[in-house]
């Protein structure tokens, strides 16, 4: 890798780190300036709204299968239902994920045998 390419990697890395780090320092100062007891209420309202919505957006993008054919969409739908079903019963993080992957995998494997 050339020196110019190394510089490009380092600038990209430092830039990405600063985008993750500087807003945290800004928010910490803001929280420190305001009353400590206010906690979450000291956050700008738009930030409090955007946080959960960003997670929902990441969910939306990750739902699209790598090979978006009929079988993959069917597997995704069944995987989602399995995840939701187990979450509804257990209210945990790990088991619903395991159940979702197992259901998704079962559909994919079955389809690969049938087709």
């Amino acid at each position: 890798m050339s020196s110019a390419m190394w510089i490009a990697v380092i600038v990209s890395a430092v830039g990405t780190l600063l985008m993750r780090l500087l807003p945290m320092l800004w928010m910490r100062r803001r929280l420190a300036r305001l009353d400590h007891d206010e906690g979450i209420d000291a956050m700008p309202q738009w930030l409090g709204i955007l946080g959960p919505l960003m997670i929902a957006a990441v969910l939306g993008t990750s739902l699209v299968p790598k090979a978006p054919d009929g079988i993959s969409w069917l597997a995704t739908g069944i995987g989602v239902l399995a995840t939701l079903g187990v979450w509804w019963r257990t209210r945990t993080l790990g088991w619903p994920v395991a159940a979702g992957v197992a259901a998704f995998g079962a559909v994919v494997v079955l389809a690969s045998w049938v087709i």
Partner: protein
Amino acid sequence: MSQQAVSPTPRPWLTGMREAIPLLGGYVPVAISFGLVAIQAGFTAQEAVLISALVYAGASQFLFVGMAAAGSPLWLVVVMTLLINVRHVVYAPNLAPWLTASRGWPWLMHALTDQVFALAHTRLPQLPETQRLGWFTGAALFAWASWIAGTALGALAGEELMARWPLLGEIMPFALPALFLVLVVPRFTSRRWSLALSLTVLSALTLTVTGFTNLAIPLAAACGALCFQAVKCRPAAKGTRHE
């Protein structure tokens, strides 16, 4: 891996690592793909691993090696890489109310990816203050290490792995949407939030299907925020509250 508030445990970093395990289902196959793509683009295995360790941002890394291999001007490569990662600016402020006074936090922000943010945004508020740094350190460094290890594996043996277990690379990434689903569902607490979250998920899905993958997250979140505000602006019917 309960989502309820937990009593203090002696090793919060271990809890963090355990709760980050579902992330690996998505991280490792994608990291293997990145290692493979980087080798095919002319980078060495060491260079691919260093890019993963230093930049640590999935989509932008693929763009970086792709544009560099295509001979694009390096300033453009850097600008595009940073543009894709600009969504990260809203993550840390959302976690800030639950961060303690430790000087370790700024360094740990290097590991604040989409997935780690989603997990931490749900779990940090549930943890006692004394356990948050340990938990985040365990979860974030474990995810980072898996990304680096996956890249190395992909760079060194990616072609053989993909040929031998083609279905594994197709099945394991479902761990990510399953995890995000579990993180999002408890937030459907009111009609207002339900509408905004549903619209966000559908917008992101549609944008990704139509090829706007890199714009999908910020645009979908903006759509959801507009919906959230619009529902608030409507005159309250029958005296109902939406929050």
